[in-house]
């Protein structure tokens, strides 16, 4: 154990990637994520890794996918405008089932927007940004320590499920320095390699967990990888049954293991009448607001997902059944609130505390929101 260190969220992300076994980084400069690249370029050569600065974000993720198919754990990092460009290859990595980690340090949008004020405006893009039907795994850390932990987790999930995993945090977390204790070792998951002989190998025959084994290019298994809908041999087809079977399996491998993917933290919910739903940096403010409200006699609590997608519907439904009011606090014009309403299904009143002006949501605002929700109740 190296003891406590004072580091930035972006640096914790790089350190988490290295701890998880990442040996390849390709990226394009963009604030507020650039420190991740700047750390990786210095650190990767010491672990036998490779770094490349690409001509744009489209190329960055293509290069990451190429490196992953050659057997390396690979990542890229960006912010909103670059995340938009990466959507093309997020879809490719989903259908071709290529493990990779994409980090989006969110800033205000749309377009070039607010460089570089914090935002949570990309949470729906992280779910639905690429075209077509697809599963998504999206993790949302709320502290520098958690950036480290969830970066490791992002790599492990991407290797396990052979798919891209997105890590979303905002400019505040990316640039905040906090004291963290980094473990000497972390649990690491590696992609499953085939046990069949090369001659018998079909690249898209799923193992029992719904995930096909993946050899590296150059290992002696010669196979085809394509973004076209394909059969178990990896070859393009337009056969409806085969297409249905692929798209179903891509979703099922995530849905069937959602319990193991989901992460939800609750705070002071046992006797709560009103609960915040908040993620990322906003959850820190919400936690403080809960403590202040409690000292004023308001029974408040917090539900904080660390996995935004798949969405923790059951956890939200349970909270909704228990409280009178849920307040969804997010730094956007209202993106996750729709999911919360859907999961709450009328069991609780769902209010929003939304802000998309580039300023972080403060504890004082949320304390006021709690008081406001109580007053509304009285009026009602």
């Amino acid at each position, binding site marked *: 154990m190296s003891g406590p260190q004072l580091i930035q969220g972006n640096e914790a992300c790089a350190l988490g990637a290295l701890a998880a076994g990442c040996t390849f980084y390709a990226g394009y400069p963009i604030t507020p994520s650039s420190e991740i690249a700047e750390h990786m370029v210095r650190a990767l050569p*010491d672990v036998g890794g490779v770094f490349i600065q690409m001509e744009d974000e489209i190329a960055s993720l293509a*290069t990451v996918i190429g490196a992953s198919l*050659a057997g*390396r754990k690979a990542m890229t990092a960006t912010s909103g405008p670059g995340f938009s460009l990466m959507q093309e290859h997020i879809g490719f990595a989903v259908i071709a089932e290529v493990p990779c980690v994409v980090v989006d340090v969110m800033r205000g949008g749309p377009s070039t927007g607010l460089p570089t004020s914090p935002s949570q405006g990309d949470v729906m893009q992280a779910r639905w940004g690429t075209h077509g039907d697809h599963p998504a795994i999206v993790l949302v850390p709320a502290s520098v320590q958690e950036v480290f932990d969830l970066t490791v987790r992002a790599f492990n999930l991407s290797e396990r499920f052979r798919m891209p995993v997105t890590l979303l945090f905002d400019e505040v977390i990316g640039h905040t320095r906090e004291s963290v204790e980094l473990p000497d070792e972390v649990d690491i998951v590696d992609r499953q390699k085939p046990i069949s002989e090369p001659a018998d190998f079909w690249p898209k025959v799923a193992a029992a967990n719904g995930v096909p084994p993946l050899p590296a*290019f*150059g290992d002696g298994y*010669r*196979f*085809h990888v394509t973004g076209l809908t394909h059969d178990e041999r990896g070859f393009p087809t337009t056969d409806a049954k085969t297409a249905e079977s692929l798209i179903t399996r891509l979703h099922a491998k995530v849905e069937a293991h959602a319990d193991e993917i989901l992460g939800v933290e609750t705070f002071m919910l046992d006797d709560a009448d009103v609960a915040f739903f908040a993620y990322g940096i906003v959850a820190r403010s919400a936690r403080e607001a809960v403590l202040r409200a409690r000292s004023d006699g308001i029974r408040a609590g917090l539900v904080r997902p660390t996995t935004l997608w798949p969405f923790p519907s059951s956890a939200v439904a349970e909270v909704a059944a228990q409280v009178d009011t849920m307040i969804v606090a997010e730094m956007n014009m209202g993106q996750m609130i729709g999911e919360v309403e859907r999961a709450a299904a009328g069991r609780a009143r769902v209010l929003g505390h939304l802000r998309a002006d580039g300023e972080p949501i403060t504890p004082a605002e949320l304390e006021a929101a709690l008081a406001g929700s109580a007053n509304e109740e009285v009026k009602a």
Partner: protein
Amino acid sequence: MTTDVKSYLREWAMPHVLCPGCAHGIVLRAFLEAVGRLELDQDKVAMVAGIGCSSRLIGYVDFCTLHGTHGRAPAFATGLKLARPELNVVVVTGDGDGLAIGGNHLIHAARRNIDITVMLLSNNIYGMTGGQASPITPQGAVASTTPAGNTEPPFDACKLLIGAGASFVGRVLAANPVVMTDLLVDAMVHRGFSFVEVVSDCPEYYGRYNQLRSGSEMLTWMTRMEQGVADPLAEKGFVAHIPKLAVPAGMKTGVLHSENRTVFEGVREPIPR
């Protein structure tokens, strides 16, 4: 000795998608002859392609094959090569894939001088999507999106790549498969970024729109143009404004540029401390 090209083919994946008269098959054969002549380890050949008719070739070869997204093959190839340098990485692209949507990736791969080979099969048109104009469709040529004749000037792909820094650039006609194999061998042996433009054909769309009605006629035509015959179509009595392939009379073929330059391998050496 002639290569047993069937040993490099996924015969189970046939029949292929190419049209009768398309010269891409000739190109594939010439490439496989080059692989055979170089005695490359079949497990260490990685072919990367984007989207389009040319890109579909890699589905039929028994190597590691990565059929990526439109225009991005050089970027996928960069990842493969940097991650595993012992791979022989070959990109197959076309004039739309490589020069329009993928132009940026192509010139940057050339600038870096990464050790990969790019074969660009120019057929003057987007064949897969039904005959739209490409960045090398000649001025005046008819395509489905230039019904009155193309008004845009075309790229010279080889000049573009030399300008971008490719350390090996060559051009060959699909009509000359033996020469093509020689050129592809030179390109693959070359250390650094090598680029070969193969002048191919598309009788189905480009030919039909521009009065070159069969594959054999198109191959004959490109050969005559290379030999400096001003306008073979005029000999047939067609009007003079009928455009050509993006092959001006007396167009240069063969090795157009070759130099030894530092090969890019990514940032992989620790910073001296």
